[in-house]
């Protein structure tokens, strides 16, 4: 199986060991990432229990259409990422590059929509701080909600930006023909990261946009 183009670092004995190590390393890193977001999820859970009514009221100030659209965009980007890996497995270099670029474009679309939402929150005075104003009795719980909203989606967006950068590097490497059906580990590892960022959003969407019912 070792292809002439397979690069084996000196510390490894064979490509299988190298591949498995990289994959395990990424999964361990993702466990770390879960805990990194975990601090925010813990804060969210606490304050949702402490301010249930405020969270529901504040959640309804989020734009459900844009949120759902963004979820769709991100799910699609996960599909294209998975297909990019599959194309590398089957040795279809052109397809790999095309799917990676599509993934990046979808990621950029996600960030643009997110930016639009942030802008709307800014004009609606829903950014926590001195200019924050929220009608009704729940203003301080709502401010907490929006603080968490910005912290959680902000951290997620930072991960998206990093992800787009990494996918870009991988796309260039793919275009240079660095990956073969025998060696595509960096691509697969990047794919794991991208899907993970998608999963975080899969949780953020119902937790932030879908509190209570909108009726």
């Amino acid at each position, binding site marked *: 199986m070792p292809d002439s183009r397979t690069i084996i670092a000196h510390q490894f004995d064979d490509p299988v060991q190298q591949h498995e190590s990289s994959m395990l390393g990424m999964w361990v890193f993702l*466990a770390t990432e879960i805990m990194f977001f975990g601090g925010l999820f813990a804060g969210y859970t606490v304050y949702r229990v402490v301010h249930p009514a405020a969270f529901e009221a504040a959640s309804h100030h989020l734009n459900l259409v844009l949120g759902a659209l963004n979820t769709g965009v991100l799910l699609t980007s996960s599909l294209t990422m998975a297909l990019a890996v599959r194309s590398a497995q089957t040795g279809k270099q052109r397809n790999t590059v095309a799917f990676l670029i599509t993934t990046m474009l979808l990621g950029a679309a996600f960030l643009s929509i997110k930016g639009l939402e942030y802008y709307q929150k800014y004009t609606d005075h829903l950014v926590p701080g001195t200019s924050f104003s929220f009608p009704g009795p729940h203003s301080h719980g709502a401010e907490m909600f929006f603080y968490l909203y910005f912290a959680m989606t902000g951290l997620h967006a930072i991960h998206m930006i990093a992800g787009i950068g990494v996918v870009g590097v991988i796309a260039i490497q793919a275009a240079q023909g660095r990956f073969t059906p025998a060696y595509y580990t960096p691509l697969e590892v990047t794919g794991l990261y991208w899907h993970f960022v998608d999963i975080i959003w899969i949780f953020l969407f119902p937790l932030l946009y879908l509190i209570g019912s909108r009726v």
Partner: protein
Amino acid sequence: MTSHIAPVKLYLTVFIALLVLLAVTVAASYVPLGRFNVVIGLMIAITKTFLVMLFFMHVSYSGRLVWVYVGVGFFWLAILLALTMADFLTRWWPPFLGR
């Protein structure tokens, strides 16, 4: 290396399932179900996560170790949430109301 190559059809099926679940979760938020809104929202999110991890992330074809570390990540998150909430949920229990 993961020699397993999943068919494109599988990826597409998973993708469609994810979109259907997205539609369901949005639709469910228009039905007043009280506390079950959050239960449904989270159940659907967990289902979506399973789909993404098992198929897009190839966990279903991966070795035991990957399963272990996927579990470890979520288990430790559960520890963090459960023991933190052990404080916040019981703080106002009788007979120590508010103390």
